[in-house]
């Protein structure tokens, strides 16, 4: 080993910090899309490192479906306080009340797709020209072909067939009025990299990721948490389970796994032994083979 070499994680970190700094240098009104999940927490941590000792020079945007885990909301508010930066909330409930979005009907109804309306509204209202997200290429096949700098037209839409070529680490952020970019600094990270990094940096994450006792119902191979929004189907019953979540979204679509992992070390060990993908517990991805691509084209995260 040469004296001048970085570990894989250090290299990924350096790449991500470089990308985040490029965003701030190339755009007028960037923002970080913050879901409260581990990936956006890692991106926020990287942004803090990128501009230290200055504050993160952009706001966080959170799209609030109204169907949240209380823990996520508390975590978000504490983080924003600690960082001393602005929080922009885009409300799905408000979009529904204004008639901009229509609530889905049926037993599997969720507000997942409705987030697109609120997200694009927030981007337009605050004139955001670059929205930084925590999406990774390894998590979903439509995301495997994303660029670091991903261009969106003035309807906020993604055209996967007509993406700009991206070479070396030279990023082309040129755009017309009304268009914007989505930027993904942790494109090249895997789920394992994210967890190892959280462990290495000792980054605080919501308690939902650690094993805890919770009421849930077993549906579609996953433990769906009990909430005010859950409608039981025939034959289903609520049980108390020791469980945790591998990904966090809206409470109506995020399933958990049975687990005893209550420390970061145990989570890392559990994930390295696991044989299924993290999004296997997300009902939003199970709707069709190309449901992620279809949502992304419209302007999804």
């Amino acid at each position: 080993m040469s004296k001048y070499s970085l570990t894989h994680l250090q290299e990924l970190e350096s790449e991500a910090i470089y990308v985040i700094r490029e965003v701030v240098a190339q755009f007028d009104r960037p923002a970080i899309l913050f879901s409260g999940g581990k990936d956006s927490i890692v991106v926020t941590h990287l942004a803090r490192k990128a501009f230290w000792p200055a504050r993160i020079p952009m706001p966080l945007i959170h799209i609030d479906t109204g169907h949240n885990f209380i823990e996520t909301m508390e975590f978000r508010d504490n983080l924003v306080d600690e960082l001393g930066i602005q929080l922009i909330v885009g409300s799905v409930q408000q979009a529904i009340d204004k008639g901009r979005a229509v609530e889905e009907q049926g037993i599997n109804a969720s507000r997942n797709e409705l987030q697109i309306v609120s997200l694009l509204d927030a981007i337009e209202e605050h004139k955001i020209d670059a929205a930084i997200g925590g999406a990774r290429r390894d998590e979903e096949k439509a995301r495997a072909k994303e660029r670091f700098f991903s261009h969106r037209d003035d309807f906020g839409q993604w055209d996967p067939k007509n993406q700009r070529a991206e070479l070396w680490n030279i990023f082309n952020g040129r755009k017309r009025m009304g268009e914007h970019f989505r930027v993904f600094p942790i494109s090249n990270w895997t789920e394992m990299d994210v967890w190892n990094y959280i462990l290495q940096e000792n980054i605080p994450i919501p308690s939902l990721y650690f094993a805890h006792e919770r009421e849930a119902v077993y549906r579609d191979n996953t433990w769906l948490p009990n909430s005010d929004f859950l409608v039981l189907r025939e034959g289903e019953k609520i049980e108390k389970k020791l469980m945790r979540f591998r990904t966090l979204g809206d409470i109506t679509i995020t399933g958990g796994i049975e687990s005893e992992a209550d420390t970061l070390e145990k989570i890392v060990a559990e994930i390295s032994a696991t044989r299924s993908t993290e999004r296997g517990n997300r009902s939003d991805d199970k709707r069709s083979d190309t449901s992620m691509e279809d949502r992304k084209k419209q302007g999804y995260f």
Partner: protein
Amino acid sequence: MRFTTAGSVDDGKSTLIGRLLYDSKSIFEDQIEAVKKSSERKGLAHVDLSLLTDGLRSEREQGITIDVAYRYFATPKRKFIIADTPGHIQYTRNMVTGASTANLALVLVDARHGVIEQTCRHSYIASLLKIPHVIVCINKMDLVNYSEEAYNKVVEQYEELASKLDITDIRFIPISALNGDNVVNKSTNMNWYTGSSLLDTLETIHISSDENHLDARFPVQTVIRPHQDEYHDYRAYAGRVAGGVFRPGDEITVLPSGLTSKIKSINTFGGTIDEAFSPMSVSISLEDDIDVSRGDMIVKTDNQPEVGQDLDVLLCWMATKPPRPGAKYYLKSTTNEVMAIIKEVTYKIDINTMGEMVEDTNIKMNDMARVRMRITRPLVYDEYRKNRITGSLILIDDATNETVAAGTILA
């Protein structure tokens, strides 16, 4: 470690990648299940591993890959990022994209057919983009009875091709991706082969010396100035080291202005550090209050790059429309953006024979050509063969904002 692969539909590339991912346990059960179900629905006799990554609707409909796909796998020894480039559509454009960030190129050759046009093209691009390592996998050895003679014939052919290329490290491995010979484990069918398996080679190949640690280069991305009382006089230049090693106390020059100073400190979130080398992202504070901003490059005073307005560039044209005569383009290199015009096409390159075509100078999509460029402001650069970061550039069309070309600076 980042590597790139390229090939046509039937050379076994998907099978090889599928095997690397599967044997290193990087494919999850629910992914395999989903692919099995999709394959069954389509009435396929076997599990089509390409469905794992050909994720776009139009790709699944047409059964082709239309874009560079990134895949990830890890072994206990090393983590890998594969830029998998499709064989047919927009061949050169995709291969150049995949090659631009790779440490290593995997070239697949069918043992029955030997070196073909496509092998030349892929190897040539690897050479032009200065990928330091190439592994030639001579595949389908099972179809030539694992014959050493057949293998040697291909090695000989490739070595003749390689004599015209600029690649320092070339290795050959006889494999059968389908049966797994020499992919992860050493094959018992080819005892005459004394080298390592493909995975073993990928895990142990020495790549840390590929970075340029001689010529210190620091393109400035942005200036950090906290407007907080506790950091009242703090001012630092944020960037990613593009070459060499910087230490506090180093005499530096800021280019293109030529102003000089000394490094006061190298700062990170974790505290100040004693040295910064490529590819670290850090911020640098200087002893003197001089004018430094985005687009400038901090270098060591005793080792300076070129500064100029006339460039010799090898361009790969990526847009469907050819360059407009006399048109201005945005040229981006490191953190710099200037306007540029193509003054003259010196020659086009026949990507199959590597010959120079002096007569034909009409650039079209997927063409590679040597051009003379004139830029509006002085650019700080190195020759690409000396530094892949400070020697590379892209051109952007000011009318469409599209990236229309990739370039490596020759002089």
